[in-house]
């Protein structure tokens, strides 16, 4: 039988250490909404999403109350819209109308983000996919809750450099379209290499074509819980350190599994995966950088950071895997800058640079995330940063991503305020040497030799 100490431990994690379920994300396939008439598609999308997701927010709140665990976000991911709109959209503006439909239905059912304004172009682009990409600046400036993601490469296909070049320009253009709000549009736009089909986290969530009609994916969190557990083992060796992270990750993930099962039963929708992630928020005590400091660094970014992050990421997975029946998504430690107070402090102290962040992305889940850069940064430079990051993912057979915000009108030393979960960020310096000739070559980078496993 449960004893009073165990109950107190759990409640302490929830009340003082920011333990929460970060998101319940409902994945909905829109493949059966396809039609050659735009108006019909709009109606189909609205009806299908509303029908499946109308009780999502209420169910999340009920679970929250009964178990006493906060569920911070309730979200929706849908099939990449480039596929859904391919038969009916003749111009980029047609695609952005679909974004508006997604935004409206998201507001109607009360979710805070809807992901899937996406295209998967890791090898090549269809005309529809190119149109969707070109519609992103307009789509993200006209909507509040729509998130967009583009898969530009994979270990199996190599990197689509034409699309990488295009995305550099699109990110700049999106920044320009939303410059009144510190280029906020770019915070809802991410590019990937090896994008997973079942990621519950934004901005990269979409419902892959390999998935069922509707599923529930859950993303857990809990950097504060890990940090507090590590405070008790200061000075101990790496074995003790790793065991402590593993045990804590197990406990955190079990809560995610419980919530996922419960939500799936109540909504009568199959359970997909639990994403084992340490996802920080700007709240004090909810930081991945603080864990790195607790492991023994003065600031995130100091020598030793990559090693510390590598062990953290690995132990989180090892502890979490046994706690859940299905694990998927991105799973690992996230290192967004603006969403993590410890990362912001590290940048402000001069300890953390873009190059160090890139090294860190080799050993953790995802990649360069929520990084504000000067608005004057050239599109080709952004493409170069993307290409570097995707190459890391391609060669290491892992997911990598880039979500950077060239903040129009701001430069190194300025601060940017995105608000809410997206946080605030100091603008970081970018290496300004040119890569124009490299980006302008066109074509694709072939898949690496180790992709041929047949």
């Amino acid at each position: 039988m449960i004893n009073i100490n165990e109950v107190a431990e759990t409640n302490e994690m929830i009340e003082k250490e920011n333990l929460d379920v970060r998101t319940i994300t409902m994945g909905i396939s829109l493949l059966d909404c396809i039609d050659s008439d735009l108006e019909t598609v709009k109606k189909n999308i609205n009806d299908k999403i509303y029908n499946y997701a109308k009780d999502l927010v209420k169910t999340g709140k009920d679970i929250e109350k009964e178990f006493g665990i906060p569920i911070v976000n309730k979200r929706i991911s849908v099939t990449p819209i480039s596929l859904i709109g391919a038969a009916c959209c003749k111009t980029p503006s047609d695609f952005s109308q679909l974004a508006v439909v997604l935004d409206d239905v998201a507001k109607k059912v009360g979710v805070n983000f809807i992901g899937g304004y996406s295209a998967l172009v890791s090898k090549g682009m269809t005309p529809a996919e190119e149109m969707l990409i070109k519609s992103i600046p307009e789509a993200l400036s006209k909507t509040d809750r729509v998130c967009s993601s583009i898969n530009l490469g994979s270990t199996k296909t190599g990197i689509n450099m034409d699309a990488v070049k295009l995305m550099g320009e699109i990110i700049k253009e999106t920044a320009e379209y939303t410059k009144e709000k510190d280029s906020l549009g770019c915070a809802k736009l991410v590019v990937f290499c090896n994008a997973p089909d079942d990621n519950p986290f934004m901005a990269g969530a979409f419902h892959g074509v390999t998935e069922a009609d509707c599923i529930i994916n859950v993303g857990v969190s809990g950097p504060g819980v890990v940090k507090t557990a590590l405070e008790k083992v200061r000075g101990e060796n790496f074995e003790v350190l790793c065991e402590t992270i593993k045990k804590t990750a197990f406990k955190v993930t079990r809560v995610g599994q419980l919530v996922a099962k419960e939500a799936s039963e109540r909504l009568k929708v199959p359970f997909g995966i639990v994403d084992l992630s340490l996802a920080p928020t700007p709240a004090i005590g909810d930081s991945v950088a603080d864990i790195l400091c607790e492991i023994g660094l003065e600031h995130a970014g100091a020598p030793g950071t990559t090693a510390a992050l590598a062990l953290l990421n690995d132990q989180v997975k090892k502890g979490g895997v046994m706690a859940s029946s299905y694990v998927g998504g991105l799973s690992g430690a996230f290192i967004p800058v603006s969403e993590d107070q410890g990362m912001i402090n590290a940048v402000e102290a001069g300890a953390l640079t873009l190059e160090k962040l890139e090294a860190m992305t080799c050993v953790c889940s995802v990649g360069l995330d929520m990084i504000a850069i000067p608005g004057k940064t050239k599109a080709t430079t952004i493409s170069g940063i993307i290409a570097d990051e995707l190459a890391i993912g391609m060669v290491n057979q892992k997911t990598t991503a880039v979500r950077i915000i060239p903040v129009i009108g701001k430069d190194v030393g300025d601060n940017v305020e995105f608000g809410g979960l997206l946080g605030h960020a100091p603008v970081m310096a970018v290496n300004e040497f040119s890569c124009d000739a490299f980006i302008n070559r066109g074509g694709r980078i072939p898949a690496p030799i180790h992709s041929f496993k047949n």
Partner: protein
Amino acid sequence: MKKTIITVVGKDGVGIIAKICTYLANNNINIEDISQTITGGFFNMMMITDMNSSSKAIGDISDELAQIGEEIGVVIKCQREEIFDSMHRI
């Protein structure tokens, strides 16, 4: 089995258990186990209860207990047992 864990944390005082037990009795909720400690003047109690015969939903009971807690100056939480089980038992 709708088992729930009720926890009470706060400054010690007269009649805390009485007040909560009266509420539980009025709502047909059976108490299966109680443990409590007082550390540094702080009252810490846990009850395992069975709500199968209660006509109210757990969410409502949770709200009403929180309300009672506010009246007598303690924090009362009511959570389903599974969250603790899943975290502490394999």
